[in-house]
């Protein structure tokens, strides 16, 4: 993953909406007053959620002032973690896991499909529909490899055919259901709808 760049077009200002402001009050209560800068990560996440899944510079400044931190410190944190987006992403934001287990099970084919259907480059918004994709490291669902994350949901046990269907459905704004695409319940073994634990319980 290369260094994240901030977007060229930045909004002039940023304010948390009422709901998030209340949320912030709750978050700040978790930390002692003198250590309130500990709240920087949840606040950045809130800002990202509020602003169509990306964090503008104005939001970083706002958070820095809110927590009495230098701007550069917030900026460092936002650039360090890969799950903070610093440039606009699609309404359907697709994260393709390409770490070893997924790659062994064919994640490269999913990447190829993304390149074909969405955009030839990562972090580019598709011409048709409102999608963008990015390669990420392990999302912790190796048991259902290969898998992708679309916004907050996991789509698992994929192959070329159903990935292509899922991507089409996103472009046409009729997203398919998340979960396993080989009919597994959660992470249970295939064709048996219970796990070892359940059987012996």
């Amino acid at each position, binding site marked *: 993953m290369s260094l994240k760049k901030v977007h060229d077009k930045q909004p002039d200002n940023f304010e948390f909406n009422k709901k998030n402001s209340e949320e912030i009050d709750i978050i700040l209560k978790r930390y002692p007053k003198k250590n309130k800068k500990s709240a920087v990560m949840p606040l950045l996440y809130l800002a990202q959620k509020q602003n169509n899944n990306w964090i503008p510079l104005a939001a970083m400044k706002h958070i820095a002032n809110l927590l009495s931190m*230098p701007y*550069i410190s917030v*900026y*460092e944190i936002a*650039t360090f973690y890969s799950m903070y987006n610093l440039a606009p992403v699609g309404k359907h934001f697709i994260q393709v896991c390409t770490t070893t287990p997924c790659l062994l099970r064919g994640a490269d084919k999913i990447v190829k499909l993304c390149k074909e259907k969405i955009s030839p480059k990562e972090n580019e918004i598709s011409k048709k529909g409102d999608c963008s994709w990015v390669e990420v490291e392990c999302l912790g669902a190796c048991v259902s490899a290969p898998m992708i994350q679309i916004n907050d949901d996991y789509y698992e046990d994929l192959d070329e055919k159903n990935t292509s269907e899922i991507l089409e459905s996103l472009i046409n704004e009729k997203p398919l259901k998340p979960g396993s695409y080989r009919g597994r319940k959660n992470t249970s073994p295939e064709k048996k709808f219970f796990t070892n634990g359940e059987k012996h319980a």
Partner: protein
Amino acid sequence: MPKITINGKEIDFEKGMTVLQACELADVEIPRFCYHEKLSIAGNCRMCLVEMEKSAKPIASCAMPAAEGMNIKTNTQMVEKARKGVMEFLLANHPLDCPVCDQGGECDLQDQSLYYGVDKSRFVENKRQVKEKYMGPLIKTQMTRCIHCTRCVRFATEVAGVPEIGAIGRGENMEITTYLEKSMESELSANVIDLCPVGALTSKPYAFEARPWELKKTESIDVMDSVGSNIRVDTYNWEVKRILPRLNNEINEEWISDKTRYSCDGLLKQRLDVPYIKKNNKLYKSSWDEALELISKKFQEINPDEIAGHIGDMVGLENALAFKKLFNFIGSKNLEFREKKFYLNSDEKMNYIFNSSIQGIEESDLILLIGTNPRHEATMLNARIRKTYVRKKVPIYSIGDPGELTYDYQIIGKKTDDILKIIKKENDFSKKLLSSKKPIIIIGESALELKSGEYIFEEIKKFLKQNNFITKDWNALNVLVQNASTVGLADLKIFPNEKSDYTFFDKLNGGKFKFLYLLGSDNLEIKKTNEFVIYQGSHGDRGAEIADLILPSAAYTEQNSLYENLEGRVQECRKASYPIGESKEDWKIFNSIIKKLDQNNKNFKFELLREEVKEKIQNFTEINELPEKTLANIKDIKCEFISEKILIKPLDYYYSNSISRASKTMSECRQINQTVRKTG
């Protein structure tokens, strides 16, 4: 004291030391990149690995606290192998551009790779390439060379107090940058160049100018402000190429301000090289003979009472004394060195120096600034206040609004009435002040300039004396003067009379002078009418503009001289280069004038002048040492209190004297600073 064994030798160490510091006590040198004495510990370069008994892995000595009974080995094969490994990783992405790198010859990485480097690289992949970053007009960046020691980041946050540098991204893609690549808004920014152990941050004005081994190094002191930072002047032939800080824990530690460092290019520009004489409102090149002839004619024509002399901000003590002797010779007493009317009681040395001393700031438990902006007036002193603030969270208060000072402070008033309240113990602050043990009151020139400056100063002094804040151990009374020459010249009593009042200014503004001799004086406000003005100095600046006769003299890097800093510490400024063109050292010029006036007069000898200066300095102890401490004499001065607003006069930091005004680098800094202020 606890004991530690280093390479089989047992030594005592102080509690709280790290293994690396203990090794230094044992005279064992540990290679390092990220560790720096004056900065916090990062422990990220791993170069300082040593072997510790009972530890399977080598330990980073800079981050490991030393403990009783540790057995450290630094010369084993394991250590060498570990360090070689670290070095190989550091060099994996470091470009092999030493021949074109400005750090070459004084590069930590270059030096250490001599001992720990491997001659061949096993790294066959592409080296990483990082874009250059903009960091302002002083710092040139070549970020591919960066080894991520984060010294610059720690310096900006901890010492400079402007957290603007940071490391963005992570792992292979980590990059050091200022926030959105803006220039660093600090008067100490260029110190990151010295801190950088590689050639990632180098000096922009000095880029490709010279190699360190070609330069002649002269240990000297700085005269840009009254702190008297210790510097090293590097010259190539006669040209001053750069100025670097010299370690002095009592004054500037390891840092110097940007003005000290980069005004040196002003030493090459706007220089006066031959005498000039004004004829028909135009200055013409002339010769020394002609100039001396004219001076002696004027001296003989004009009544001594109408002859006045003013000494400027960067004049050394020997030259000032020779100037005073010249005036004694012609029988005039109209001498002054202040650039504006501010109250200065020259009865006692205590009245115009920083009595608590710069190092003493670290011991204080309360700081009150009265009408001063130490950030611009004495940058290194401000850095010391910040250091104390960071370490002990010492409460800092201000009367008057000085603006951003790199630390938090509380404004407790903006009028002279607020000072009165403190003295009368009427407000909360006076309780805090009285309950503190080692307070520091810093009175700036802006406060002394007020109409009630005398009242403020004398009352505060009385108040401090009465409350036992002026004792042999601790003196809370501090005056922050702005010019390098002020304290020394006050000691030499460069005043028209004993009282050090404003006679000179009254006469000057009243047009009583017919002959004005400006010795390096550029900041004096003069409405020129019919006076005959001589300007003697190094630069064609404000003083030369109004002069009828210009005598070229040497700048501070071109003559030996003593200076007294704001603490009253006498320091020696040494000759690093030669006076340009036909210019001469100031005291030699006075010699030739006196010779011209009276053939039989003996010449001044520099050594004798220096001896006399040392005798004249009050409470003088030794060169480089603080003056003797005295107890305050309280004089009942009947002066009136006037209720006034305390306005801290903004100092044009990058343009405060003739050398910095001639410097291209300084004007660039000033321009950027002004646009930042406008646009935010």
